[in-house]
């Protein structure tokens, strides 16, 4: 796409087959003014992004190499913080939880989202159903964490309903060892609506004639799904996988407030890396360990990069044209 405003004149020249290597008279100043305009338009966003986003990321990488409490001088530690992290059982648990959320939570979310999408497509009033399922992802996850605290409390609604159904010894939902599973479940429930909506938007763009052609060729419902639906929305699925990676790594408030009655800090068994960063950098009782905390944050960034690269690799296919 090209326009008169930001157009690259060299392209125009090439199209015209112009033999003049320097272009028509007057093109150079025009091109200069266009380039100036380009920078004038982009400069504010670039500056804001550089100062408030890229610079902090760089500063985090640098701080992660020091031991620092935020007040006294920094002490060089090199990669020592990363080593400390690796030896810290709490960090290992946090990393394990993060990975579990990313991989297990991701798989469950995708299977459910895909199934929901397939069912919703054939339903009446599907837009209404989609809206209701979508809504939870617009709400601060804290809300559901607190609500779960009441819903799953020992005498809470869920247990009373189960008792009424004849299950008198329900599990202790909010016990520390179940917390991570409960958080995962809540997360999957809030996220599926969002991914279902993305998949629906993608599948809606598949032209009907492909299905008709497949049907004429004698493909049954499963074959149509396998050979039309799946390949046609493969790109969107791979983007969704990356989206999930990023969003699952930065989950914070859901864990912080889950159950609503966990005291001033949630039990370490339910932490993920984001919570680890927060608790190490801004602890209630001990000295802040900013170097260690930023190192933990960097680990979560590496995790995102690693998964993004690997996912892109695995899921790359030749683009389908339609």
């Amino acid at each position, binding site marked *: *796409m090209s326009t008169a405003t930001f157009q690259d004149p060299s392209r125009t020249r090439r199209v015209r087959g112009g033999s003049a290597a320097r272009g028509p008279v007057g093109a150079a100043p025009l091109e200069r003014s266009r380039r100036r305009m380009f920078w004038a338009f982009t400069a504010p966003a670039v500056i804001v992004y550089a100062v408030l*986003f890229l610079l902090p990321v760089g*500063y985090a990488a640098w701080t992660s190499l020091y031991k620092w409490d935020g007040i006294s001088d920094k002490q060089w530690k090199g990669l020592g913080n990363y080593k400390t992290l690796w030896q810290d059982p709490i960090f290992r648990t946090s990393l394990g939880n993060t990975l579990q959320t990313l991989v297990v939570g991701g798989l469950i979310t995708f299977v459910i989202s895909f199934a929901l999408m397939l069912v919703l497509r054939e339903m009446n009033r599907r837009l209404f159903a989609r*809206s*209701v399922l979508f809504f939870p992802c617009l709400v601060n996850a804290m809300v559901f964490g607190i609500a779960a605290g009441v819903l799953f409390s020992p005498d809470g609604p869920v247990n009373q309903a189960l008792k009424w159904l004849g299950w008198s010894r329900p599990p202790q939902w909010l016990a520390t060892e179940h917390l991570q599973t409960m958080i995962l479940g809540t997360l999957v429930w809030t996220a599926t609506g969002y991914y279902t909506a993305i998949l629906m938007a993608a599948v809606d763009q598949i032209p009907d004639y492909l299905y008709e052609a497949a049907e004429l060729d004698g493909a049954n419902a499963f074959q149509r799904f396998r050979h039309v639906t799946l390949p046609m929305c493969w790109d969107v699925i791979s983007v969704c996988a990356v989206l999930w990676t*990023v969003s699952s790594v930065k989950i914070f408030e859901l864990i912080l407030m889950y159950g*609503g*009655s966990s005291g001033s800090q949630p039990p370490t068994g339910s932490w993920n890396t984001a919570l680890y960063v927060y608790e190490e950098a801004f602890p209630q009782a001990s000295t802040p360990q900013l170097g260690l905390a*930023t190192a933990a944050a960097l680990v*979560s960034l590496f995790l995102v990069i690693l998964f993004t690269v690997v996912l892109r690799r695995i899921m790359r296919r030749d683009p389908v044209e339609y």
Partner: protein
Amino acid sequence: MRPRRKAPSLPMRIATGAVWVVVAADIALVGWILLTSLRDGSDILRHPFGVPVHPKGANYGKVFADGGFGRAAVNSVIVAVLSSVLAVVIAAPCAYALARRRNRVSGAMSMTFAMGLGVPGQVMVIPLFIGLAHADLDDSQPGLILAYLGLAMPFTVYLLTGFFSGIPAVLEEAAVLDGASMVRTFTKVILPVARGGLITAFLLQFISAWNETLFAIVLTHSQDKVTLPVALSSFVNEAQLNGLDWGAMFAGVCVVLAPMIALFSWLGTRIIQGMTVGIGK
């Protein structure tokens, strides 16, 4: 709409039923939260499914008076509105330039913005805390607004670039032939056409700023500076010390939740489209 081929099969009917059960459960959950916020605390644990017999606003009075939710709500509105407006105002010209000028520089720039989408917030939170403290902007609304502005850049630029690319270039060509300058073309011709995209970008940014918790907790702590998620979390933490009042806690939850319900029932389609359509491109 695709023509109905045949009557739905039995598995499909069961699946459809299951979906409606989930939909009903979602609505029931939100309804239950809203109703419970009107009930007496001790009553809730005895009859969790009860209806407020004497609906009382006392819970809301309590969170607004003791929890500082009134001030926090005002702060949330100020921070969310200002940071989103600024984000759109700053990102729009950049996105337009990136959408129209396709060369190596703009490609690298778009790529750099897109990479920001992959950085989790916890990486920036400590550096921003330190940086804002150095600039005397810690525990202040301008500080929080700046933090949100930076966080908003990657997504807003990405979203709007996609949007501007979809606007036909013929429009500007006509304006340029009429002798309009580039700035004039952008403000008088492009922006009016792009209004829908700008509103979507604003809305999505507003929603994420409204719900944002990590930066708000780290960057603000005074009673008159905190936003709603911070007020809610400290209210819940204090409630643990003074004995839990579920009614008041749910009233606090509703103050965070209700604006999203209102916004979604009003502009739901636009929000869903903004969050889903650009994804595959």
